[in-house]
């Protein structure tokens, strides 16, 4: 490979990126198959009796219906979720498709990383100076955050969501936002480009995971309520049926555990976002002579910050813990995506770095 020809390097970067997308797509399928298997594994037990299995599990004596895919030993999660045992109603062991999914995600991540690095060398600077590059590096960081968190807590059930999100964003980036390598305009020639944008992407990765966990939390909460209703004597058939929809949820942690995990990840995101906002102000002062001017991008960064401050408050407000605060995390991440996808492209402002 000729590492001195920018055009060639950039085309290698594109090959690597497209390969990464292909592998992400297969990983996505593997994760999706895993979810389906979870459903059928739960179904196998449920034919016995859903509520009985629940009860039996809580007593820690449930028998295994299918020893190869179901391990009823409580897997102990480590560090980040130290005291949170996987308190799933029906704990679910390693399935081959889950392992395949993770392995492929790691492979795709490596290709993705190579694509970003080669783009950086081709441009002779950090690879996040326009929408295309920012999407490429931002999704790389989302994936990095996910893989790192996996070493600390078993969140592999989010694989479908994370690979799916990364795939969609990369697809939009490659098809809609692609621009050729260009040098940095003077306004972006700053150390703050490196710090501000990098930390913003990292925060986005955290918020994405928080969003996914909060979404699953809401679903799980619905399942839990319908299970407790369905197990009540004389429960209407529809409730029983509702309890059986999205059955794979029974293999995931309880909604309370999911809520705690979502909170922990989101507060890291919030600290990083606060730093992003401050670093952005310092940069704005250097580049534009004012640290805050309610430019559209600044407005949305502020809105996101306030929404997450609200989320943190909600967790400490009576009546707002649980589902309501989860909605705030979901709205917060939606605002992050809106800020990235819509504000950059369609709104007028000083942050015109999309390169489109």
């Amino acid at each position, binding site marked *: 490979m000729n590492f001195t020809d*920018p055009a060639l390097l950039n085309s290698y970067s594109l090959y690597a990126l497209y390969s990464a997308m292909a592998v992400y797509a297969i990983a996505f399928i593997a994760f999706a198959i895993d979810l389906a298997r979870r459903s059928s594994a739960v179904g196998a037990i449920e034919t016995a009796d859903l509520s009985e299995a629940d009860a039996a599990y809580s007593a820690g004596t449930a028998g295994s219906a299918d020893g190869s895919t179901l391990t009823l030993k409580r897997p102990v999660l480590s560090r*980040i*979720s*130290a*005291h*949170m045992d996987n308190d799933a109603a029906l704990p679910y062991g390693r399935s081959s498709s889950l392992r395949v999914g993770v392995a492929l995600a790691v492979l795709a991540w490596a290709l993705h990383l190579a694509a970003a690095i080669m783009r950086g060398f081709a441009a002779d600077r950090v690879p996040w100076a326009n929408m295309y590059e920012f999407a490429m590096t931002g999704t790389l960081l989302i994936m990095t955050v996910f893989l790192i968190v996996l070493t600390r807590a078993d969140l592999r059930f989010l694989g479908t969501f994370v690979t799916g999100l990364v795939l969609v964003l990369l697809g939009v980036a490659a098809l809609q936002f692609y621009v*050729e*390598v*260009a*040098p*940095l*305009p*003077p*306004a972006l*020639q*700053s150390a703050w480009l490196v710090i501000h944008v990098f930390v913003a992407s990292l925060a986005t990765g955290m918020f994405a995971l928080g969003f996914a966990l909060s979404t699953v939390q809401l679903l799980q909460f619905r399942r839990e309520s319908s299970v407790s209703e369905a197990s009540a004597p004389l429960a209407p058939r529809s409730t029983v049926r509702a309890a059986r929809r999205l059955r794979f949820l029974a293999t995931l942690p309880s909604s309370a555990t999911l809520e*705690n995990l979502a*909170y*922990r990840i989101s*507060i890291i995101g*919030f*600290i990083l976002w*606060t*730093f992003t906002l*401050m670093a952005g*102000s310092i*940069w704005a*002062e*250097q*580049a*534009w*002579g*004012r*640290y*805050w*001017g*309610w*430019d*559209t991008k600044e*407005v*949305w960064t*502020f*809105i996101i910050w*306030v*929404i997450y*401050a*609200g989320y*943190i*408050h*909600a967790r*400490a*407000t*009576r*009546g*707002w813990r649980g589902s309501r605060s989860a909605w705030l995390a979901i709205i917060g991440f939606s605002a992050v995506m809106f800020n990235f996808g819509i*504000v950059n492209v369609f*709104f*007028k*402002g*000083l942050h015109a770095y999309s390169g489109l």
Partner: protein
Amino acid sequence: MQPKLGLKGWLRWFWRQLTSMRTALFLLLMLAIAAIPGSLVPQRSSDPNGVSQYFADNPDLAPVLDKVQAFDVYTSAWFSAIYLLLFISLIGCVIPRTRHHFQALRAKPPTTPARLARLSGFTQRDAPAQTDAGAAITHARTLLKSSGYRVARFDSAGESSVSAERGYLRETGNLIFHGALVGILITVGFGGGYGFSGQRVLVEGQTFVNTLLAYDSFNPGRFFDDTTLDPYTLSLDDFSVAYEQQNLQAYGQPIDFTADVTVTPKGGAADPGVVKVNGPLRTNGTNIYLLGNGYAPTITVTAPDGTVVFSDSVPFLPQDANLTSLGIVKVPDGLAEQLGMIGFFYPTQDKAATGANFSSFPDLEYPMVTFNVYTGDLGLDAGVPTSVYALDTDTLTQKTGGKTGVESIELKPGESAELPGDLGTVSFVDNAPAASAVGDFAQSVPRFASFDIHYDPTQIWLISFSMLVLFGLFTGLLVPRRRMWVKATTRSDGTVHLDYAGLARGDDPGLDAAVTAMADRHLKLLKTHQPVVATPEST
């Protein structure tokens, strides 16, 4: 019957509502929602031209929006009301919590609960043989203290315990965070009043003295006194640019702007400096920013008798990425009629198929200036201030270009042309040094830089409060606040039984592990101390 509340009662009720967590949350969400319109509608503060355009495009809607301050969202009454209420709520919430926290800092940890088994991370151990319950607790106390716990010891017959609490920093951090937010609000609210910002365009070779009159525009803060301006001088010695020429995908994209300047303090020695985009020059208490640049062709107008009636390097404002630039020349005196010219400057002139001129590269490859000439009343005598960057053509007659049928004047550096109606001559002066090769126009036209000069004495406060905000967040969100207990009970056979347990106060993922770790360390400590006491016969 409900008891009557009375005014005082109502006020107290209102205050309690305002400072409740529920209200704080409500106001935060309101603040987020209220900030949205400012991103949908152009704002006077950041985009005044956008506002004018909006009025032109939506003549019916715009005045209605204006009534509800939609073009000034962030200074509007409703936006201000939300954040002021929020901050009053915040202060009302933080003050009692601070008082509480001071008391907590001085208080002793609470007595050890009777039954530890119900608490988090409950662990039991057997002390090594011959350990004394009291001594075991003394060791536990030392261990907890060295881990940053505040401790209290409780002894009763056959049972000793230590109660420990740590993580007061969590609440301290939270209070610092909220307090620093108030600091930021106050600094931003009043800080702007003590500084100023001013704009000044300088052509290469020009000098500016930092005095009120020398600014093109000047915006002092409410409390700023102009007489305190420090009259240093700023000269633009050279303005250099670099445009991409290797990479055809980005051909003509700017890659560097550098203003080489000299700053001379009053009565001091000249000091060379550099101002770049992203690299303001901080000098004499002010910050000098480079916010724009362009070309300032040197234009001379000569009367028929040979007297020079106008000679200046006129800043032409860039209109596109290849620096097609628009400039105005006004000659009120010295000619038979007042003369106004609207000029276009093309650093690298090219002709489209339609015959229209355009610029194909932002640097000086093949410069040309064109003029449409107007005569009549320039409107300068009415005493109304007029912009040097605009020509009001209502009271003027067009003489060249447009529908006049007379060709616009087109000049390359060093060329001159007759003005219509024998008014005189206009020349485009070539500034290139005599030694330049023929066809090398690189230095033929001077450049200008537009500088913003700011003075803001409150920036240091903002930075400090921001650091406190970050510190408060780190500690307030990540430091675990927890209680821990170690209890030693002497059994009837003389052996000692140890209980360990913890209690989270707020989110605390590491609690169970911390209790277990404490138990392990404690036991290890007891074992290392034990042989001395317990094994005298082995020596």
